[in-house]
C-alpha cells in the first residue's frame, strides 16, 4: 500500500469540521469541508509530491470500486479526510449529497466538488419558521440551486427539499434540465402553483415519486393532474394530501388506472368518499393510502355504498399505512376494520372522532408501529392504544384545540398508560394541558429505547399539576434514563435545574427545543458546555443573554444552527460572537417590518456555520453581522 493511506488525521474540536452524527430525519451524505491546508501536517506522504502516475491511478480505481459501497455520510466524510487522493476519489463517487442548511455552502462549491451527483437533499428555513416566528420572505430559495445544478448535473434523479421556497420558474427549469428525473419530494415548501407542477409532471417522463407533504401549492387555474403524459406511467408514489387545490377527478382516476406501479397514494380532502372508492377498486395493490375526505358522499356519488366500501378495503391486501380522514363521518369508519390488523402506520390526526369510535378502530391494530391522533381520543383512547399496540414505536398526539387556557382531554394519565403498554416506544410528540413529573419519570423508566421525546404542555410555565413543582425532575429523568435520546423538546415550568440535567446527562442530544423556560444564563451555559453532540438548538422567550451566548463559542462550528428569539440578547453580544467566529453567519432578524435593527435588543438571532460568507439574498429585516 502506498503511503497515502497511512496517515489519518482527526478533525480537531475547534476546527471547522463536520459533525459526525445525523439528525433523525437526515438523509445520508453531507459535504464536509475541504481538508486543512497542505503542509499543515507534516505526515503528508511524499508520494504526492513525486507521484508515480501508474500506481496512483491503479489505487484510485481500486478506491473508486470500494467507495461505491460506502453510502453513509459519516463514513464518506471520514474517508474524504484521509488524504488528497481519497478526498478526490470520494468526491467523484459520491452520488447522494445532503445539505442540511442551504446557506452553509454555495451551489457552485457543491457541484465543483461533487461532479457526479444523482440525488440531492437541501433544507432551508429553520423549524421555528413553521410557527410564524420568522418574518416572511426570509429566504431559502431553490432558484440558485436549480440554476447551478441544471448545468452541472444533467443526470440528476432525485430532489428532496424541506422548508424551501420554489417558484414556478424553478420547477420549469428543473423539468427542462433533468431528463432522467425520477423523484421530487417537497416537504413544508411553498412559493409555487399548479403551473409549476404541470411542468414537472408533463416533462419528467420517468417520474416515480411526487410527494408534496405539508407543501403549499397555490391554485392558478391549471389542473396539474391532467398533464401527466398519456399511456402507462412509472408512478410509484403520489402524495398531495395537504394541497388545497381542486382536482379533476376524471383525470386522477385515469392516472391511477394507468399507473401499475403505484403503491403510495395520498389524496387531498377534495376527493370524496365515493371517488375514493372508485380509485381503490382500480388500485388494490396500494400499500400506503391517504383517504381524502372520507365524509358524506357528495351528491354525485352513488348511494348506499357501505358494504362496498368495506369490500374495497378488504381487497387491498397490501395496505399497511392509512391516513386522511380529513372530513370524516364516523359512520364510515367500520369500512376500514378489515385492514386494521395489517396496519403498521395509522394517521388519524385530522379526524375528529370520539373515544368510542377511536377505540373500535384501535383495538384491532395490534401490529401498529406508528400512530398519529388528535387529543380528542382522551386519556381513555390512549389507554386503549396501550392495551393493543404493543409494538408501537412512534406516537404523536396533536391538540384539537391548540390554545392555552382550555380544558385538555389528555393528561399524565394517557402518558403513563402509553409508557406501560408500549415499551418499544422510540419517538413521542405529546400535546397536553397538564402533566406530572411522575408520569414523565415513569416513561423514562418504561421506555428505554426513546430516541425522540417532545412534550408540549400548552400552558406556558405550567408546573406539575399535582405537586406544583417545576417539571425539572421529569425531563431530568428522561435524559438520564433514555440513553439513546437524540431529540428533546421541553415545556412547562422549568428552572435552570432542568438544563443542568440536560447538560449532565444529555450526551447524545442533537436537537433541543426550548420555550419559555429557565431562570438565567446558567441554564443555557449548562447545555452549551455539557452537550457535545448538540447540532440544532432552538430557543424562544427564555431569559438567556450575552453571557450565555458567549459560553458556546467552542461549539458553534459543530452545530448546524442556533436560533434564539425574544431572549435577552444584545447586538453587542452577537457581534462578539461574529468577531470570534468568522465562519459563522450571524443573522439578526427584526420583527419590525422594513426596518433594520436600530436599537440594541435582538428580536431573533439565527446563526449557522457557513463556507459561503454572508448571503446576498437577505431581505431588509435581516442584518448579517
Amino acid at each position, binding site marked *: 500500500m502506498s503511503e497515502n493511506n497511512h496517515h489519518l488525521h482527526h478533525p480537531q474540536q475547534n476546527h471547522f469540521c463536520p459533525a459526525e452524527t445525523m439528525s433523525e430525519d437526515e438523509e445520508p451524505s453531507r459535504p464536509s469541508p475541504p481538508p486543512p491546508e497542505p503542509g499543515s501536517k507534516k505526515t503528508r506522504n511524499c508520494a504526492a509530491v513525486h507521484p508515480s502516475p501508474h500506481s496512483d491511478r491503479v489505487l484510485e480505481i481500486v478506491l473508486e470500486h470500494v467507495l461505491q459501497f460506502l453510502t453513509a455520510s459519516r463514513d464518506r466524510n471520514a474517508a474524504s479526510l484521509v488524504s488528497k487522493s481519497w478526498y478526490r476519489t470520494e468526491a467523484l463517487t459520491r452520488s447522494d449529497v445532503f445539505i442540511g442548511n442551504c446557506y452553509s455552502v454555495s451551489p457552485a462549491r457543491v457541484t465543483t466538488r461533487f461532479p457526479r451527483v444523482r440525488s440531492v437533499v437541501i433544507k432551508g428555513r429553520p423549524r*421555528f419558521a413553521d*410557527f*410564524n*416566528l420568522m*418574518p416572511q420572505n426570509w429566504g431559502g430559495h431553490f432558484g440558485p440551486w436549480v440554476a447551478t445544478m441544471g448545468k452541472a448535473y444533467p443526470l440528476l434523479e432525485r430532489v428532496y427539499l424541506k422548508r424551501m421556497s420554489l417558484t414556478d420558474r424553478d420547477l420549469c427549469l428543473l423539468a427542462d434540465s433533468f431528463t432522467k428525473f425520477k423523484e421530487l419530494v417537497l416537504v413544508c415548501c411553498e412559493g409555487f402553483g399548479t403551473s409549476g407542477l404541470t411542468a414537472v409532471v408533463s416533462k419528467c417522463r420517468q417520474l416515480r415519486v411526487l410527494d408534496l407533504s*405539508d407543501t403549499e401549492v397555490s391554485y392558478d387555474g391549471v389542473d396539474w393532474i391532467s398533464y401527466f403524459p398519456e399511456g402507462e406511467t412509472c408512478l410509484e408514489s403520489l402524495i398531495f394530501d395537504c394541497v388545497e387545490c*381542486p382536482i*379533476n*377527478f376524471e383525470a386522477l382516476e385515469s392516472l391511477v388506472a394507468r399507473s401499475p406501479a403505484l403503491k403510495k397514494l395520498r389524496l387531498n380532502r*377534495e376527493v370524496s368518499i365515493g371517488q375514493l372508492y372508485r380509485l381503490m377498486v382500480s388500485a388494490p395493490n396500494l400499500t400506503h393510502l391517504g383517504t381524502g375526505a372520507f365524509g358524506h358522499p*357528495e*351528491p354525485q356519488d352513488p348511494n348506499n355504498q357501505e358494504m362496498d366500501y368495506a369490500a374495497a378495503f378488504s381487497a387491498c391486501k397490501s395496505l399497511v399505512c392509512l391516513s386522511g380522514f380529513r372530513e370524516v363521518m364516523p359512520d364510515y369508519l367500520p369500512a376500514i376494520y378489515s385492514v386494521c390488523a395489517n396496519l403498521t402506520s395509522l394517521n388519524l390526526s385530522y379526524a*375528529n372522532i370520539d373515544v368510542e369510535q377511536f377505540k373500535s378502530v384501535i383495538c384491532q391494530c395490534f401490529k401498529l408501529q406508528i400512530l398519529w391522533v*388528535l387529543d380528542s381520543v382522551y386519556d381513555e383512547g390512549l389507554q386503549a392504544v396501550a392495551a393493543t399496540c404493543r409494538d408501537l414505536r412512534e406516537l404523536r398526539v*396533536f*391538540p*384539537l*384545540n*391548540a*390554545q*392555552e*387556557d382550555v380544558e385538555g382531554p389528555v393528561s399524565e394519565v394517557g402518558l403513563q398508560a402509553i409508557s406501560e403498554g408500549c415499551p418499544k416506544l422510540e419517538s413521542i410528540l405529546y400535546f397536553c394541558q397538564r402533566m406530572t*413529573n*411522575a408520569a414523565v*419519570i*415513569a416513561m423514562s*423508566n418504561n421506555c428505554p429505547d426513546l430516541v425522540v421525546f417532545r412534550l*408540549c404542555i400548552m*400552558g*406556558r*410555565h*405550567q408546573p406539575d399539576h399535582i*405537586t*406544583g*413543582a417545576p417539571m425539572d*425532575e421529569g425531563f*431530568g*429523568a428522561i435524559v*438520564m434514563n433514555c440513553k439513546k435520546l437524540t431529540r428533546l423538546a421541553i415545556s412547562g415550568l422549568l*428552572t*435552570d*435545574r432542568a438544563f*443542568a*440535567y440536560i447538560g*449532565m446527562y444529555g450526551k447524545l442530544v442533537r436537537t433541543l427545543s426550548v*420555550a419559555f423556560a429557565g*431562570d*438565567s*444564563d*446558567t441554564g443555557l451555559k449548562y447545555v452549551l458546555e455539557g452537550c457535545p453532540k448538540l447540532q440544532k438548538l432552538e430557543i424562544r*422567550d427564555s*431569559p438567556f*443573554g450575552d453571557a450565555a451566548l458567549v459560553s458556546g463559542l467552542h461549539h458553534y462550528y459543530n452545530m448546524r444552527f442556533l436560533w434564539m428569539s*425574544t431572549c*435577552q440578547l*444584545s447586538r453587542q453580544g452577537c457581534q462578539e460572537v461574529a468577531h470570534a467566529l468568522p465562519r459563522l453567519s450571524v443573522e439578526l432578524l427584526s*420583527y*419590525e417590518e422594513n426596518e433594520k435593527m436600530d436599537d*440594541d*435588543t435582538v428580536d431573533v438571532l439565527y446563526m449557522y456555520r457557513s463556507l459561503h460568507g454572508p448571503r446576498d439574498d437577505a431581505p431588509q429585516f435581516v442584518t448579517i453581522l
Partner: protein
Amino acid sequence: MEVSRRTANLLGGGGGGRGLNLKETELCLGLPGGGGGSEVAPEAPKANGKRGYSETVDLKLNLHTKEPATLDLKDMPIKNGLKEKNLLASADSTKDPAKPPAKAQVVGWPPVRSYRKNMMSNKNNKDEGSTDQKTSTASAVAFVKVSMDGAPYLRKVDLKMYNSYDQLSDALGKMFSSFTMGNYGAQEMIDFMNESKLMDLLNSSEYVPTYEDKDGDWMLVGDVPWEMFVESCKRLRIMKGSEAIGLAPRAMEKCKSRS
C-alpha cells in the same frame, strides 16, 4: 404494578415543591462549586438596562420563590419581547369585543403549524359542544365547496369575500360560465314570498344554487339573511331547477318560520 410502586417512592419523600427523593432515582446533581442535590439558586437577572423583558423575568423569578401552585398565571401576561406584534393574523386572534379576552395569545404558541390549526378550527365550527369563542364562527375565511351538476370538477369559494347574494351569484356565474351555456344567473334573487314565481323557476331548465346547511339539509340559496347564510352554509351545489323542486317546500317553511 412495578411502576406505580416506583412512583409512590418518588412522591413519598415529602409533599410540595421539591419532594422527590433524589437518591432513590439517582438523579444526583453534582453542580460545580455546589453540593450534590442542592437546588440551583436562581441568579438575579442580568441588569442590562433593557426594558420590557427584564420585567417579565422578574415576574417569573417571583413565581419560584412563592408557592408556584397557588399563583394565578392568568394575571401575568407574558410580553412577546418589547413589541407585542402578531406576525400573522391567525384565525384565533379575531377581535370580538363582546367577549372578554382570554389569556393573551402568543405568536406561534403552542407550536402547531398553521395548516393544522386552520383545519382544526374548521372542525370546531362543526362541533356543537364548542364554547370557546376563538374557534366559533368569527373566523376570517369561510371556504365552501361548490359543485355544479355536469361540471367535471368542484370549485371552492370563500363566502366572506362577498357581501350579498348578488355578488355571490355573479361570482358563481363567472366560475361556471363555460358549463352553463348561459342558463345560469337568474336576474334577481329567488323571491321566496312569491310562490308561483318560485315554482316557475323550479320547473325550468335554469340552474339554481342550493346549499347544505349546518343541519345537513339541502336548501335553496337566498332564504335567509346573507350573514346567516354565510355562517350556516357548508357547501353549495348548483343544480337544474327541475331537480331542486323537492327543496322548495322546505325552503318555504324555513323561510316563513324565520321571518
